[in-house]
């Protein structure tokens, strides 16, 4: 059966950091305990493997600085592009609606210009043939004004409102 103390000692600290006395104790115990011997051998092998692995170091290549600076420039450029695309995505609906509004305004302007201009005299003649409307002054229900009288008042600035009433 494994002695917990030995295994605990092997796990609590790195084998390389054990004192001479502690190592002697481990060795003395493992001499009589095959299971702990395996654990000790495994701990030894683990430490050796780790040390060998740590000795493998890759040296920086000669133009590493240049590569890093190029990567930084590339990153800056792509972040600018990203910022612009984000801005465009946000502004796109606004730009589209503004464009649609401009098109609508242009269409309305064109449509309005293509209609023949209306003459005031024509309006009057058309209105002459129209049924006689009566304009009622709300202040005085008795005062009535025909449509043609109202037009005269509106288009003849020299005429006083009182004349139109016949006063």
């Amino acid at each position, binding site marked *: 059966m494994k002695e917990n103390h030995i295994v605990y000692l*092997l*796990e*609590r600290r*790195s084998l*390389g*950091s054990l004192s001479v006395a502690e190592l002697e104790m481990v060795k003395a115990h493992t001499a009589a305990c095959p299971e702990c011997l*395996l*654990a000790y*051998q*495994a*701990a*030894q*092998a*683990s*430490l*050796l*493997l*780790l*040390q*060998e*692995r*740590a*000795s*493998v*170091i*890759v*040296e*920086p*290549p000669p133009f*590493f*600085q240049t*590569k*890093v*600076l190029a*990567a*930084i420039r590339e*990153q800056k450029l792509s972040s600018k592009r990203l910022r612009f695309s984000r801005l465009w995505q946000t502004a796109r609906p606004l730009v589209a609606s503004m464009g649609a509004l401009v098109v609508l305004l242009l269409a309305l302007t064109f449509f309005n210009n293509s209609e023949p201009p209306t003459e005031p005299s024509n309006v009057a003649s058309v209105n002459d043939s129209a049924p006689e409307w009566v304009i009622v002054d709300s202040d005085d229900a008795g005062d009535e004004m025909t449509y043609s009288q109202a037009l005269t008042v509106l288009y003849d600035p020299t005429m006083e409102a009182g004349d139109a009433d016949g006063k």
Partner: protein
Amino acid sequence: MTDPLEQASDLELAKLAQETDETAFAEIVRRYSPRVFQIASRFFRDRTQVEDASQEIFLRAYTHLADYEGRGSLEGWLTRIATTTCLNLLRNSQRRPESDLAEMPEAEAEWLDHHLAGVSAERHRAAEKSREAADLADRVLGTLSPDDRLVLMLVDADEMSIKDVAGATGWSESKVKVQAFRARRRMREAVEKLLTVRKRNPSK
């Protein structure tokens, strides 16, 4: 004539680089790329992977340069970025299944046999055996979690203090201790399995 930037202190370089002086940052890269490559080599074996990881570390350092206030050393600050970046890269990569351990090449099996036969450490460390040991170490470490791997490499292989590892990883000292304890157990158990197989079938 010597470049004035070569004479500049780390803090001066960091300040210049913060003001988007690319040549100052290039000097930082020149000064600390061996250290960064050393850290990345602990996590990755392949040269391309180490180089890519190192480039990523310096890119992150450049992006977060404004965070460096000059309270600690630039080397310590870069070590922390390097450690966390490599740990994240390792976490994103796939972990090797434990079943892969059984199918080891002849050379690695031989290394274990020599170990069991009690061949001296000097013999173990011979150049030709060194590569096999490193390969075997990668095989075993590949079955462990990235956190276990990190703590074993820093504490046991590099013999860094618990405090320094805590500083490099951003973990608490008690977390480093617990992680190291568990990682040692997992590594030992994995190697124990290999040794048991070799003891049973030494010729295989």
